[in-house]
Protein backbone atom coordinates (compact mmCIF):
# COMPACT_ATOMS: atom_id res chain seq x y z
CA UNK A 1 0.00 0.00 0.00
CA UNK A 2 2.55 2.48 1.08
CA UNK A 3 4.62 3.56 -1.87
CA UNK A 4 6.70 5.93 0.18
CA UNK A 5 10.16 5.50 1.59
CA UNK A 6 9.37 7.62 4.60
CA UNK A 7 6.18 7.47 6.65
CA UNK A 8 3.45 9.64 5.19
CA UNK A 9 2.83 11.39 8.47
CA UNK A 10 6.32 12.78 8.52
CA UNK A 11 5.95 14.34 5.14
CA UNK A 12 2.57 15.67 6.08
CA UNK A 13 4.11 17.30 9.11
CA UNK A 14 6.70 18.93 6.90
CA UNK A 15 3.95 20.11 4.59
CA UNK A 16 2.07 21.44 7.59
CA UNK A 17 5.15 23.32 8.74
CA UNK A 18 5.58 24.80 5.28
CA UNK A 19 1.94 25.80 5.30
CA UNK A 20 2.36 27.48 8.65
CA UNK A 21 5.44 29.30 7.41
CA UNK A 22 3.47 30.57 4.46
CA UNK A 23 0.59 31.61 6.64
CA UNK A 24 2.83 33.54 8.99
CA UNK A 25 4.61 35.10 6.07
CA UNK A 26 1.30 36.18 4.68
CA UNK A 27 0.24 37.72 7.93
CA UNK A 28 3.50 39.37 8.87
CA UNK A 29 4.86 40.68 5.59
CA UNK A 30 3.42 43.88 4.29
CA UNK A 31 5.03 43.91 0.89
CA UNK A 32 2.61 42.43 -1.58
CA UNK A 33 5.32 40.55 -3.46
CA UNK A 34 6.30 38.72 -0.34
CA UNK A 35 2.66 38.11 0.41
CA UNK A 36 2.30 36.49 -2.99
CA UNK A 37 5.38 34.42 -2.33
CA UNK A 38 3.97 33.27 0.98
CA UNK A 39 0.81 32.36 -0.83
CA UNK A 40 2.83 30.23 -3.19
CA UNK A 41 4.46 28.49 -0.29
CA UNK A 42 1.07 27.71 1.17
CA UNK A 43 -0.27 26.39 -2.10
CA UNK A 44 2.80 24.30 -2.69
CA UNK A 45 2.69 22.83 0.77
CA UNK A 46 -0.81 21.64 -0.08
CA UNK A 47 0.56 20.24 -3.33
CA UNK A 48 3.27 18.43 -1.42
CA UNK A 49 0.69 16.95 0.87
CA UNK A 50 -1.25 15.73 -2.13
CA UNK A 51 1.74 14.09 -3.74
CA UNK A 52 2.60 12.44 -0.47
CA UNK A 53 -0.90 11.14 0.00
CA UNK A 54 -1.02 10.00 -3.61
CA UNK A 55 2.22 8.08 -3.15
CA UNK A 56 0.91 6.58 0.06
CA UNK A 57 -2.14 5.23 -1.69
CA UNK A 58 -0.13 4.42 -4.84
CA UNK A 59 -2.50 6.46 -6.95
CA UNK A 60 -1.91 9.01 -9.67
CA UNK A 61 -4.63 11.24 -8.23
CA UNK A 62 -2.22 12.97 -5.93
CA UNK A 63 0.00 13.96 -8.82
CA UNK A 64 -2.95 15.09 -10.87
CA UNK A 65 -4.02 17.34 -8.04
CA UNK A 66 -0.44 18.52 -7.83
CA UNK A 67 -0.53 19.62 -11.43
CA UNK A 68 -3.86 21.32 -10.97
CA UNK A 69 -2.55 23.15 -7.95
CA UNK A 70 0.47 24.25 -9.91
CA UNK A 71 -1.80 25.62 -12.59
CA UNK A 72 -3.95 27.34 -10.06
CA UNK A 73 -0.95 28.83 -8.34
CA UNK A 74 0.34 30.05 -11.67
CA UNK A 75 -2.95 31.69 -12.47
CA UNK A 76 -3.08 33.36 -9.09
CA UNK A 77 0.44 34.62 -9.47
CA UNK A 78 -0.17 35.81 -12.99
CA UNK A 79 -3.09 37.95 -11.86
CA UNK A 80 -1.19 38.86 -8.74
CA UNK A 81 1.78 40.14 -10.67
CA UNK A 82 -0.51 42.17 -12.86
CA UNK A 83 -1.94 43.74 -9.76
CA UNK A 84 1.52 44.33 -8.35
CA UNK A 85 2.44 46.25 -11.47
CA UNK A 86 -0.63 48.40 -11.21
CA UNK A 87 -0.13 48.99 -7.50
CA UNK A 88 3.48 49.98 -8.02
CA UNK A 89 2.46 52.36 -10.73
CA UNK A 90 -0.49 53.94 -8.97
CA UNK A 91 0.46 53.91 -5.32
CA UNK A 92 4.24 54.13 -5.80
CA UNK A 93 4.63 51.60 -3.05
CA UNK A 94 4.19 47.90 -2.55
CA UNK A 95 3.44 48.23 1.13
CA UNK A 96 -0.12 47.12 1.58
CA UNK A 97 -0.54 49.10 4.77
CA UNK A 98 0.31 52.29 3.06
CA UNK A 99 -1.90 51.51 0.09
CA UNK A 100 -4.90 51.26 2.36
CA UNK A 101 -7.58 53.69 1.39
CA UNK A 102 -10.60 51.57 2.10
CA UNK A 103 -11.98 52.05 5.52
CA UNK A 104 -11.74 49.11 7.87
Amino acid at each position, binding site marked *: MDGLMVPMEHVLVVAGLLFTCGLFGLMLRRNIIFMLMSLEVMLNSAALAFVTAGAHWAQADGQVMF*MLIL*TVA*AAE*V*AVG*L*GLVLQIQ*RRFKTLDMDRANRLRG
Partner: protein
Amino acid sequence: MLGLSFLLGQRRANKATNMPFESGVLSVGSPQIQMSVEFYLVAIFFVIFDLETVFIFAWAVAFFELGWEGFLAIAAFIFILGVALVYELSTGALDWGIKRGSGRHPEELH
Protein backbone atom coordinates in the same frame (compact mmCIF):
# COMPACT_ATOMS: atom_id res chain seq x y z
CA MET B 1 38.02 26.93 -9.17
CA LEU B 2 36.56 30.01 -7.61
CA GLY B 3 38.59 29.42 -4.53
CA LEU B 4 41.75 29.04 -6.57
CA SER B 5 41.02 32.24 -8.33
CA PHE B 6 40.46 33.98 -5.03
CA LEU B 7 43.87 32.86 -3.86
CA LEU B 8 45.72 33.62 -7.02
CA GLY B 9 43.97 36.71 -8.07
CA GLN B 10 45.68 40.07 -7.75
CA ARG B 11 44.29 42.75 -5.52
CA ARG B 12 43.94 46.10 -6.98
CA ALA B 13 41.61 48.83 -5.89
CA ASN B 14 41.08 52.30 -7.12
CA LYS B 15 38.19 54.61 -7.38
CA ALA B 16 37.06 53.56 -10.80
CA THR B 17 37.08 49.89 -9.98
CA ASN B 18 34.42 50.29 -7.40
CA MET B 19 31.96 52.05 -9.64
CA PRO B 20 29.35 50.46 -11.83
CA PHE B 21 30.70 49.89 -15.28
CA GLU B 22 28.84 51.75 -17.95
CA SER B 23 31.34 51.80 -20.76
CA GLY B 24 33.39 54.42 -19.06
CA VAL B 25 30.51 56.85 -18.71
CA LEU B 26 29.75 57.82 -15.14
CA SER B 27 26.65 56.21 -13.82
CA VAL B 28 23.56 58.38 -13.78
CA GLY B 29 20.47 57.56 -11.78
CA SER B 30 19.60 54.64 -9.63
CA PRO B 31 19.95 51.13 -10.92
CA GLN B 32 16.47 50.46 -9.56
CA ILE B 33 14.94 51.50 -12.84
CA GLN B 34 11.35 51.05 -13.90
CA MET B 35 11.32 48.12 -16.22
CA SER B 36 9.32 47.95 -19.37
CA VAL B 37 6.02 46.23 -18.69
CA GLU B 38 6.71 43.72 -21.44
CA PHE B 39 9.20 41.86 -19.31
CA TYR B 40 6.54 41.16 -16.73
CA LEU B 41 4.12 40.17 -19.41
CA VAL B 42 6.59 37.70 -20.80
CA ALA B 43 7.14 36.32 -17.35
CA ILE B 44 3.44 35.91 -16.83
CA PHE B 45 2.97 34.31 -20.23
CA PHE B 46 5.75 31.94 -19.51
CA VAL B 47 4.23 30.91 -16.23
CA ILE B 48 0.91 30.23 -17.90
CA PHE B 49 2.14 28.52 -21.02
CA ASP B 50 4.80 26.51 -19.33
CA LEU B 51 2.12 25.03 -17.14
CA GLU B 52 -0.03 24.26 -20.11
CA THR B 53 2.87 22.28 -21.50
CA VAL B 54 2.84 20.17 -18.38
CA PHE B 55 -0.55 18.87 -19.41
CA ILE B 56 0.75 18.16 -22.89
CA PHE B 57 3.71 16.30 -21.39
CA ALA B 58 1.34 14.10 -19.48
CA TRP B 59 -0.59 13.35 -22.63
CA ALA B 60 2.52 12.74 -24.72
CA VAL B 61 3.79 9.94 -22.49
CA ALA B 62 0.50 8.12 -22.64
CA PHE B 63 -0.10 9.02 -26.24
CA PHE B 64 -0.77 5.57 -27.70
CA GLU B 65 -2.79 4.41 -24.73
CA LEU B 66 -5.13 7.34 -25.01
CA GLY B 67 -5.66 6.96 -28.74
CA TRP B 68 -7.96 9.12 -30.76
CA GLU B 69 -10.06 10.21 -27.83
CA GLY B 70 -7.04 11.58 -26.09
CA PHE B 71 -5.91 13.13 -29.31
CA LEU B 72 -9.18 14.96 -29.76
CA ALA B 73 -9.10 16.15 -26.17
CA ILE B 74 -5.60 17.49 -26.50
CA ALA B 75 -6.48 19.00 -29.85
CA ALA B 76 -9.27 20.94 -28.16
CA PHE B 77 -6.84 21.92 -25.46
CA ILE B 78 -4.27 23.10 -27.97
CA PHE B 79 -6.97 24.91 -29.89
CA ILE B 80 -7.95 26.92 -26.85
CA LEU B 81 -4.30 27.49 -26.11
CA GLY B 82 -3.90 28.74 -29.65
CA VAL B 83 -6.87 31.05 -29.31
CA ALA B 84 -5.36 32.44 -26.13
CA LEU B 85 -2.10 32.98 -27.94
CA VAL B 86 -3.82 34.71 -30.85
CA TYR B 87 -5.71 36.87 -28.39
CA GLU B 88 -2.58 37.84 -26.55
CA LEU B 89 -0.66 38.60 -29.68
CA SER B 90 -3.44 40.62 -31.18
CA THR B 91 -3.87 42.71 -28.06
CA GLY B 92 -0.28 43.67 -28.59
CA ALA B 93 0.95 42.16 -25.39
CA LEU B 94 4.20 41.17 -27.03
CA ASP B 95 4.74 44.19 -29.20
CA TRP B 96 7.81 45.89 -27.94
CA GLY B 97 7.39 49.59 -28.50
CA ILE B 98 4.15 50.79 -29.99
CA LYS B 99 1.07 48.85 -29.01
CA ARG B 100 -0.95 47.67 -31.89
CA GLY B 101 -4.07 46.45 -30.19
CA SER B 102 -4.93 49.54 -28.26
CA GLY B 103 -3.60 52.05 -30.73
CA ARG B 104 -1.91 53.95 -27.99
CA HIS B 105 1.66 54.75 -27.21
CA PRO B 106 3.33 52.90 -24.42
CA GLU B 107 4.00 56.10 -22.49
CA GLU B 108 0.32 56.32 -21.74
CA LEU B 109 0.55 53.00 -20.04
CA HIS B 110 3.04 54.19 -17.53
